[in-house]
């Protein structure tokens, strides 16, 4: 009922193979704890996903503390680079989608 004010509710999706790192589940409804911070950045969300949600093959998702090259990050269907990348603020109810770029044809 009450979404506590020290967490933030988001929808996270993993597509194009990244779901393999997250229990083969493409869509996750999450309450991400704020840990006494005022807000959540995309960078902090990625760290949270890597440490708390990831179940397998971390190198497919994260490298050198940031998202692996070849993954596109979409916030409400817009490229995160338009919004500021890792520093962009996550808002309640946001959909954050991680999609691996495909090369086959």
């Amino acid at each position, binding site marked *: 009922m009450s979404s506590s004010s020290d967490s933030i509710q988001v929808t996270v999706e993993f597509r194009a193979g990244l779901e393999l790192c997250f229990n083969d589940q493409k869509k996750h409804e999450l309450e991400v704890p704020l840990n006494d911070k005022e807000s959540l950045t995309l960078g902090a969300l990625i760290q949270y996903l890597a440490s708390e949600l990831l179940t397998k093959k971390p190198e497919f998702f994260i490298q050198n503390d940031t998202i*692996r090259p070849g993954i596109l990050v979409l916030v409400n269907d817009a490229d995160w680079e338009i919004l500021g990348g890792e520093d962009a603020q996550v808002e309640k109810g946001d959909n954050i*989608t991680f999609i691996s770029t495909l090369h086959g044809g």
Partner: protein
Amino acid sequence: SSFTKDSLDNDEIARFSRQLLTPYIGMKGQLNICNSSVLVIGAGGLGAPVTMYLAGTGIGRIGLVDFDTVEVSNLHRQVMHRESRVGMAKTRSGLMSAKAINSKLRVNEHNEALSVDNARQLISQYDIVVDASDNIATRYLVNDACILEGKPLVSGSALKMEGQLSVYGYKGSPCYRCLHPKPPPANTIQNCSDGGVLGVVPGIIGVLQALEVLKIASGQDPSYNQKMLFFDGEDGSFRVSKMRPRNPECDVCGDYPTITELIDYQLFCGSKKPRPEL
């Protein structure tokens, strides 16, 4: 192109009548299409529908680049090939299927691997380029060559149940390198041989690539410029996302590019080791 068509004959009017009737194309758009040329890189799962549907539209000239021959495992998705052509060069099989639809179409067979040595020279001969290839080194090579030659790139890809499509390097859109300045580590890359692919997925992406080519050729704006289409066949979902604009600091399409000629893409993508001396 050596000559420019400025009117349609009666056979062409009959042939393209249904397409001409759409106000979106009209006579002027059809003439633009007939005067356009496209280079299709890869005559496989994406290249097959691109080639057949573009042959239907009346595009003036299609170049096909592929060094493979038709195999029986291709037929489930590469529907321009046929059983009787197993062992034939894919470019020849593609030519035969395209000319069966429109015998006036000019088709150039480039039965060779796209490489640093031939990419720019091939691309320079066409108005529009379609990336229908199947590996990441070729994707960077095609991108850089298109930027260096100033050609719009309609890029599609497919694996398992999913497909992606975008237009690169055209009217302010990013290039492949703007989105992906660094290649993914080689150990994270899957292709259709190990991941499999459902034939209809490149089918859908390929027909949409043909539509994007048709739009550019006819003088309209493409739909997926600075946008990317994501299709997931598992749930039938489509997502169109707004992407970043061209990056002025991009290594190849930026204001001060550091890549001004083609590089070693196998090395860049980590699919071969650097020579020990280096």
